[in-house]
């Protein structure tokens, strides 16, 4: 990766956050610092309740930290900004909108002229392989298809930062692997077609998924979440299926597992 030469797109400095999960339990992030460089794919792993999702919402400008700060391209991040795509654990589609309309939502919110919306949405539909399903409603889609729509929606306004909150957590194991491959194909490896490679921060609790997808894996401790390990992944891209079964892969996964505790 040549990313270390460039300016970081995100700088997280001494971040602490305290919040209630609604059941009166206090969860927290404790003094977290790291940087994310353009086009880097960073996975954050950690046990449930360590504050991973909170971290993602802070990076999206949706939450303000109790302490510390986040810089986006060197500027403090105080509110949501354009150019961020969010993918949630459940596909989080609007049930009253068709596949096409769901993907078009970010463009509609950003007041993109109607005649420009159709080609942009169609391009994404082709990219995620949903041709022919444009008029389907979310309830008629399988979990994997719904999550493809969610990914297309997160990419349609061509954001430079993609934030994924356990995006494949609700899928079965096989679909999950397929979707991981798809994500790499769409957002990382498809440098052609005029689309930029994305900077991605993804939260997951699946260690092997993190190792297979990311350029770098951050392991958080149980609450309060602290960074226990910041491990670069040196596997070549594009990531091929056989890499999952190399000793290198297994060894890194094992070390990360130990770090989470």
């Amino acid at each position, binding site marked *: 990766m040549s990313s270390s030469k460039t300016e970081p797109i995100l700088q997280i400095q001494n971040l602490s956050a305290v919040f209630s999960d609604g059941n009166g339990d206090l969860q927290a992030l404790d003094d977290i610092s790291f940087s994310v460089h353009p086009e880097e794919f960073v996975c954050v792993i950690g046990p449930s309740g360590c504050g991973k999702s909170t971290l993602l919402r802070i990076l999206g400008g*949706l939450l303000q930290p109790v302490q510390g700060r986040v810089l986006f391209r060197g500027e403090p991040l105080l509110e949501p900004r354009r150019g961020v795509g969010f993918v949630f654990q459940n596909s989080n589609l609007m*049930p*009253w909108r068709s596949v096409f309309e769901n993907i078009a939502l970010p463009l509609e919110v950003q007041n993109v002229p109607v005649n420009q919306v159709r080609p942009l949405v169609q391009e994404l539909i082709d990219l995620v392989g949903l041709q022919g399903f444009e008029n389907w409603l979310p309830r008629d889609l399988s979990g994997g298809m719904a999550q493809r729509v969610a990914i297309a929606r997160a990419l349609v306004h061509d954001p430079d930062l993609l934030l994924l909150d356990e995006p494949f957590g609700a899928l079965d194991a096989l679909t999950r692997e397929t979707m991981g491959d798809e994500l790499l194909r769409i957002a990382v490896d498809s440098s052609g077609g005029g689309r930029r490679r994305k900077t991605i921060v993804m939260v997951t609790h699946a260690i092997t998924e993190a190792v297979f997808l990311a350029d770098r894996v951050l392991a958080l401790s149980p609450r309060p979440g602290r960074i226990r390990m910041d491990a670069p992944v040196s596997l070549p891209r594009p990531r091929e299926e056989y890499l999952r079964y190399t000793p290198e892969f297994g060894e890194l996964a094992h070390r990360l597992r130990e770090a989470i505790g």
Partner: protein
Amino acid sequence: MFVSMAGMLVAWQLLIVLGDFPRFILPSPGDVLKRFLEIVGDGSLFRHLVTTLKEVLSGLALGVSSATTLGYLIAKSRWMERLLAPYIVASQSVPLVAIAPLLVIWFGPGILSKVLIAALIVFFPVLVNTVVGVRAAPEDLHTLMRSLQATRWQTLRLLEIPAALPVFFGGLRVGATLVVIGAVVGEFVGADSGLGFLINVGRGLYDTSLVFVAVFVLISMALILYGIVAGIEARLLAWQRRAQD
């Protein structure tokens, strides 16, 4: 539906034949039809129908618009909820029939007092369903809208209204049937025209056929109103129906 209506008419006629009731107790279908044609002919039915229809439609418009506005504010603000909820719940424990005379005293025997009574009866079911509906918008979709920097108006138009519609229409359907009752209750208390007024007149004169005519017209009005609301609902919520198939 036509079969059941025909069956009801036959049973009614049979009751007349077998029971031999005097006409002022139970008129025959023929008597009622005759009376119906009479007041259609002299134009009085139309006049009373228009009065009640005005009251019903204005009452519905007033009740629904105030209930959705207030419902939205209550759904969005804990502060508003704390302030208003006790009064709204308390107001529901007062029977409408009991305050209808007050409204007629204050606002006169004209159409205004009926509109207010009709609006009041519509208000509560629509308000409650608006509150529940607006709160039904999933938190993650709100997060999505915020991440897209949606304006308040966009969030309302693209998320909150569509998410609230299924529950809202439940309230509106109840309101659409209640509103006719509200208008008639108002007319019973004091009025100089309207279908409720016609019933009162018929009762006073032992013109039971007239009472029947007015009741049937009221039933038809309520059914048509309900049908219109259900039709709009089916059109707007086609996404729900399709999903259930």
